[in-house]
C-alpha cells in the first residue's frame, strides 16, 4: 500500500501542495491533470528523485520519505522512454537484475520480453526502435525488478495516435497479468478512463478530487474538474456486436453504434451531435430516446440541456433553436443521434 501524508514540494517553477493519497496494492491509479499541474514532480518525489519539503511517503507502512531511490524498489517509466542508449534491449531490461547480482538473468529477461512482446528485438539498440517498441522495453525494464510500485509519467504521450491506442490496451493487459501497483500520470481523459481503477484530478499542485472514473466523470466536485473532464456524455455499458452494428446496453437503455467492440465498453457522445425535438419525427438516426428535460443552463450563444432518458444526456442547442422549440423544465422531448456518433472506447 502506498500512502502520501501531506506531501509538499517546491522545485524550480513546479510545486505540489499537501498531497494526501492512498493507493491499494494492485490498484491502477491515474493522476489526470493539465500541463504544469505538478504531476511529474509528484511522481518524481514518490520515486525519490526529490525529497519532500514536508509530509511523509509510506510504502507498505514504511516511511521512505528520505530513502534514496535505489532503496525504494519503485519502477519508473518516462514519457521519453529513457532507454540506455549504450545498451541493447536485452541489457536495458537486464539492468535492474544485474545491479542486484541476480542469477538466471537470461530466463527472467526473456520472460519479461515475452510479456511485453519485444522478444524479437532483444539484440537491438534503441536508435533502431520505434516509439512503441521503446516504451514496451522501458515498461519491461521497470517491471523486471518486481517493483512495489510502478510509476509512469505520460507513458503514451510521445507516441502516435495509433500506437497510443494499442499500447494503452497492452498496459491494461500487462497490469492484469502482473497486478503491479501503478500510478500513471496523464493529461488524456480517455487514457484515464480506460486504464484507471481510480483517478485523481490534479490542478495547480493539488489533488482536487479522487474517485472511480464513474464518480469523476459523473459527479465532478469542482468547476475545474467539470471543465477539465468535459461535460460530455460518458457511460459504461455492455456491448454486443450484431451483424453490422454494435448494441450497447446501459441499465435499461439500448444504444447502437457503428464502432465495433464488445464486452465492457465506455461510450461517449458529443452533446452537439444530439438532435432534440418535441415531436416524434422521421429521421435516419438509429438512436431515438424519449425523456424529460431536467436542467436548462444558459451559456450565452448556446443553451445546455440535461435530459433524463433513463440516462442523463447533455445536449447543447443554439439560442435560436431553444427559443423556437420553446422548452421548459419538465418538457417531454425526443433525442436523436446517429450510430456513427456513438463513440466506443
Amino acid at each position, binding site marked *: 500500500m502506498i500512502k502520501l501524508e501531506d506531501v509538499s514540494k517546491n522545485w524550480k517553477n513546479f510545486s505540489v501542495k499537501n498531497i494526501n493519497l492512498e493507493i491499494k496494492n494492485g490498484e491502477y491509479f491515474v493522476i489526470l491533470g493539465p500541463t504544469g499541474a505538478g504531476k511529474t514532480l509528484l511522481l518524481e518525489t514518490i520515486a525519490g528523485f526529490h525529497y519532500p519539503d514536508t509530509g511523509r511517503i509510506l510504502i507498505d507502512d514504511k516511511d521512505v520519505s528520505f530513502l534514496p531511490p535505489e532503496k525504494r524498489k519503485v519502477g519508473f517509466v518516462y514519457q521519453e522512454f529513457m532507454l*540506455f*542508449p549504450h545498451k541493447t534491449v536485452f541489457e536495458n531490461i537486464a539492468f535492474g537484475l544485474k545491479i542486484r547480482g541476480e542469477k538466471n538473468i537470461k530466463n527472467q529477461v526473456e520472460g519479461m520480453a515475452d510479456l511485453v512482446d519485444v522478444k524479437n528485438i532483444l539484440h537491438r539498440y534503441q536508435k533502431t526502435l520505434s516509439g512503441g517498441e521503446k516504451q514496451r522495453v522501458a515498461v519491461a525494464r521497470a517491471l523486471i525488478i518486481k517493483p512495489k510500485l510502478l510509476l509512469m509519467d505520460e507513458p503514451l504521450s510521445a507516441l502516435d495516435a495509433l500506437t497510443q491506442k494499442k499500447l494503452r490496451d497492452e498496459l491494461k493487459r500487462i497490469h492484469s497479468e502482473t497486478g503491479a501497483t501503478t500510478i500513471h500520470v496523464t493529461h488524456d481523459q480517455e487514457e484515464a478512463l480506460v486504464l484507471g481503477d481510480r483517478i485523481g484530478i490534479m490542478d495547480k499542485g493539488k489533488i482536487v478530487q479522487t474517485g472511480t472514473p464513474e464518480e469523476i466523470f459523473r459527479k465532478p466536485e469542482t468547476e475545474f474538474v467539470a471543465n477539465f473532464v468535459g461535460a460530455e456524455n460518458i457511460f459504461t455499458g455492455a456491448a454486443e456486436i450484431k451483424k453490422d452494428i454494435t448494441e450497447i446496453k446501459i441499465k435499461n437503455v439500448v444504444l447502437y453504434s457503428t464502432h465495433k467492440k464488445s464486452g465492457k465498453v465506455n461510450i461517449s457522445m458529443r452533446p452537439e451531435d444530439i438532435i432534440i425535438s418535441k415531436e416524434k419525427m422521421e429521421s435516419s438516426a438509429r438512436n431515438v430516446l424519449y425523456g424529460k428535460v431536467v436542467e436548462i443552463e444558459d451559456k450565452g450563444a448556446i443553451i445546455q440541456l440535461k435530459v433524463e432518458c433513463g440516462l442523463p444526456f447533455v445536449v447543447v442547442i443554439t439560442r435560436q433553436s431553444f427559443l423556437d422549440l420553446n422548452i421548459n423544465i419538465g418538457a417531454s422531448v425526443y433525442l436523436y443521434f446517429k450510430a456513427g456518433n456513438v463513440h466506443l472506447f
Partner: protein
Amino acid sequence: MRKPEFTTIFFALMGFFILIFIILPVLSLLFSETPGVLIETAENPVVFDAIFLSCYTAFLATLIALIFGIPLAYILARKNFPGKNVIKAVIDVPIVIPHTVAGIALLTVFGSNGVVGGNVGIRFVDSIFGIIVAMLFVSAPFLINSAREGFESVNPKLENVSRSLGASQIKTFFKISFPLASKNILTGSIMTWARAISEFGAVIIIAYYPMIAPTLIWDRLSYGINYSRPVAVLLILICLGVFIILRIVSGRNHDKT
C-alpha cells in the same frame, strides 16, 4: 540553371586561405627531412629519451587531469550552487595567461622554497615532477571543459531511471553517466595530452632538465636549424599519429548511440 551562391563561394575561399596557412608549414616541415636523417636522429639516445619523456609526462599529466578533473566536471554539469560561474572562470585561467607567466607562478608554489615544493619532500625543479606539474596546469582545462560538456549532454532522467532500478549514485555514474560521456572525455583527453606535449614556456621555467622534446628542439636551435629540425619532424609525426589514431577510435566508439 541554378544561380551560384556567391556568398558561399566567397566564404569558402576565405576558409581555404586559413586552411592552407595551417597545412603549409606542417607539410613543409614534414617534407624537409629525408627518412634517412629521421631514422638516424631517432636512433640518437638523447633524442629518443627526450621524445619518450615528452609522451610519458604528457600521459601522466592527462591521467592526473582525468582523476581530479572528472569529478569536478560532473559536479559542474549536475549541480547548481553559488559561485559555480566563478569556478568555471577559474578553470579557464590557465588558457588565458601567458605560459612563461604560468611557469613563474608555478615556481612560486613548487620551487624549493614554495608552499608545496619546500614541504612535501618531492623535488619539482629540474625534475620530471616539475614537467608534469607545468603540463597539468596548462592542459587540465581542456579535459575538465570537455568532460563537463559530455556530462551535460547526458539526460539526468537516465540517471534517475538507473537509480530507480537499484543502482546507487556511484554505480549509476560508472554504468550510465561515464560511458555516455566517454566520447567527450576521450576527445578532452586527446586535447589535454596534445596540449601537454606541446607545452614549452611553463616547462622550461620550472624544469629545463630533464629535457622534453620541445626543450631539446630549442636547445639544439642554438647550434643551427639543421640540427634541430629533424627532432621537430619526429615530434610532429608522433603527435599527428597519436592524434589521428585516437580521433578514429573516438569516432567509432559511439556509432551505436
